[in-house]
């Protein structure tokens, strides 16, 4: 597959440089997003990061102040009327009249679309609301309201479903119901975009994600790539942890103790740790990688720009000619950069195929210079920049090029941004402990030892 063969239609949603201002306040600041066809795509960001505004712009509920948007290959809002028939959406909370029954609410919507009323029964059945079809909306629990909203979205039999914070306010039972419903929709081949600030929840549902903050894209790709491709903590049990800690610290690793264990922070390649200890005749009893989850990735990504600080107000500095990007090889590369463990194929088409095939995660650093992180910089062993060789890409989000697919794209960045992002690597913030430990072969020590379901969903969905 070449880059060219991935047409606009390969994505259910695309945005390029999307902008929205409320007065002087920037709500969305040059947002780039690609939602592949098929599967569940998480749209992550803290409250106020621009998720709902982006969705509202996509659906024509508010105007955008710049950039481009495509829904199912059609530019919106220009051709929204042509494509809306294939898009079901629930924006913010479910919205129906309190005095209308579930069936009547759906019948009205079916009437507008010219659908037969048996379609209403079908979606009520699908969402498990048949028994409550003639109950008034006001008597519904929040979970039932959410299910009714999903039923309304399904009426059109849409290719694309957009759910904005679908589990907001739900109890655990309701969250489970909605999560299962969304998973099923994704499995059925539909594209589902769910926006949420609940990262752990999205991690359970989504195949791919876009992480944003301050109206900008920070990272995009499959969940496994975004979490697994990044350097992580390494938990080591060893007979003499105090000496081992000294040895590793001396070797340039960021080490801390956790009881009888030592934890090496920000490890790109566990083999390096094994070698450093073996060189002093120390051998580990066990070594477990604590893979970062989305939450830790998100916290790491946003650590640099500081949630609550308007880093986006800093103007972008264009990169000087010939400036290197993070992880970029010495030879110039005009095509898209590659995914994890990229080996820089000689010709650009091969590079494109590699990129399209592996769909590596792209991590876009904010244009503003992030806060420095001396600890992380110190922790990065020389010659093994965490993340740098594993597909992590630092770039200025606002200057991302328009060529597709952008998941494999690296935008030019200001040198300071690149250096900072590189130096930070994968450093969970203080007090944050990574979870989901997976045993790895210390010798191999590669993230590739883990299955990558995200790849499957994108490739499948792209057909």
């Amino acid at each position, binding site marked *: 597959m070449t880059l060219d063969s991935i047409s606009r239609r390969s994505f259910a949603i695309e945005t390029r440089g999307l902008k929205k201002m409320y007065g002087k306040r920037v709500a969305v600041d040059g947002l780039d997003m690609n939602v592949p066809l098929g599967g569940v795509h998480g749209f992550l960001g803290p409250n106020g990061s621009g998720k709902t505004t982006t969705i509202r712009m996509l659906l*024509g509920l508010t105007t955008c102040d710049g950039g481009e948007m495509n829904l199912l290959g059609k530019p919106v809002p220009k051709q929204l009327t042509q494509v809306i028939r294939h898009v079901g959406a629930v924006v*913010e909370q479910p*919205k129906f009249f309190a*005095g209308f029954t579930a069936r009547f609410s759906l019948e009205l919507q079916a009437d507008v679309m010219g659908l037969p009323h048996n379609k209403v029964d079908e979606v009520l059945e699908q969402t498990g609301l048949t028994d409550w079809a003639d109950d008034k909306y006001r008597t519904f629990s929040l979970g039932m309201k959410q299910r009714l909203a999903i039923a309304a979205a399904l009426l*059109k039999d849409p290719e694309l479903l957009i759910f904005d914070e679908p589990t907001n306010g739900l109890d655990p039972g309701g969250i489970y119901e909605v999560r299962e419903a969304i998973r099923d929709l994704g499995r059925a081949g539909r594209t589902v975009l769910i926006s949420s600030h609940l990262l752990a929840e999205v991690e359970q549902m989504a195949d791919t994600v876009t992480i944003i903050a301050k109206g900008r894209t920070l990272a995009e790709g499959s969940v496994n790539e975004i979490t697994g491709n990044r350097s992580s903590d390494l938990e080591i049990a060893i007979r003499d942890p105090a000496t081992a800690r000294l040895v590793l610290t001396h070797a340039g690793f960021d080490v801390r103790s956790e009881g009888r264990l030592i934890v090496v922070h920000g490890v790109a390649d566990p083999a390096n740790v094994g070698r450093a200890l073996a060189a002093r005749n120390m051998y580990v009893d066990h070594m477990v990688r604590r893979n970062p989850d989305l939450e830790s990735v998100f916290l790491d990504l946003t650590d640099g720009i500081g949630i609550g600080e308007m880093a986006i107000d800093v103007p972008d500095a264009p990169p000087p000619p010939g400036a290197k990007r993070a992880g970029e090889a010495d030879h110039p590369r005009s095509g898209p950069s590659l995914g994890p463990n990229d080996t820089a194929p000689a010709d650009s088409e091969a590079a494109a195929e590699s990129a399209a095939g592996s769909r590596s995660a792209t991590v876009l650093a904010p244009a503003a210079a992030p806060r420095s992180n001396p600890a992380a910089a110190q922790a990065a062993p020389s010659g093994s920049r965490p993340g740098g060789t594993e597909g992590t890409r630092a770039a200025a989000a606002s200057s991302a090029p328009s060529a597709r697919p952008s998941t494999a794209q690296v935008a030019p960045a200001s040198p300071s941004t690149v250096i900072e992002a590189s130096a930070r690597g994968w450093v969970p913030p203080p007090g944050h402990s990574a979870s989901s430990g997976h045993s790895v072969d210390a010798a191999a020590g590669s993230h590739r030892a883990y299955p990558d379901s995200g790849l499957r969903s994108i490739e499948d969905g792209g057909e």
Partner: protein
Amino acid sequence: MRLLMTEMRRLSNRQAIHFIVLILMILVVGLCAALWVSINPPSDADLQTQEQAFAAAQSDWDANGMEMMEACVNEEAQLQAIDPTIDKNCEEIQPPVRDDYVWAAPSWDDLLTGHGLGGVGFLSGFAPWLAGAMAILMAALFVGDEFSSGSLSAWLTIEPRRTRVYVTKLVVCGIGAAVLILLADFMTTIGTWLILKINGQPTGVPAGYWTDVYIDQLVGGLFIVVLGAIAGAALTFIVRNSMAIIVAVVGYIVIVEMIVARIIPSLQQVLLSDNTLAYVAGSSDYTTQSCATAETGLYLCSEVVHTVSRTWATSELGILAVVAIIAGWIFFLRGEVK
């Protein structure tokens, strides 16, 4: 057409609309009940008291009437010696009329002429402006709830063409209000006729009344109602809150119609109540006082009667409605829908 029919179905099932229907029905029943009470004679004791009051007024007139008349004429003559234009309206001093003191059953003709309009219902009768206000209220509730419940944004994810949605909602409000008020008008008119008939009162009307007078005023009233509903809906698209519209309507009636218009009488030319009445009845009069110091040094005031014509009323109401419709459309087209 599909959208229009769906919106009609939506409107007719809204609880706020059911509430307005209930209020209208209460008004209809109230009006009929008031007529029923007024058409039945009071108690013998009350009648006796009324007769006594009339007899006392008659005696007073017999004793002092001519004297009062003469005094008035003399005073007028003295004043006219100073200023010949002075008129004390002495001819208004008249002997008492029995009907003014003692109860008499109203007839259909009395009721019609008593209102100054050609009917007894909402549109054709006593309060076309009230019908217009109710139409505004209905439209405000219908559109306002769409915004406050958020269902309009959900609606726009099905039909994103905002102009279509806007026009449909305005049309539906106009139709809905017209149907409701027309129904209330018919019910009041028929109820009044039935009450008179049951009580053996005359129900005859002058020839050609129904075709020449009633229909004309009914159509005029309907126009006011439709215009009110459309303008009310358009204004709600601007402020997006039914309560704000209700407060604005009540505020306008209390502050502008009842207070400011009394302070500045000439303002009546543009008041919605006067213009509504002028449109329905063909014209409407209001008076202002014209005061000046005469050459003799006396400060004299006289009442000046002004007329609001139907042409003026049509222009004013039309312009206001068009401005509201365009403003609402622009706000809805460009604004964010939450």
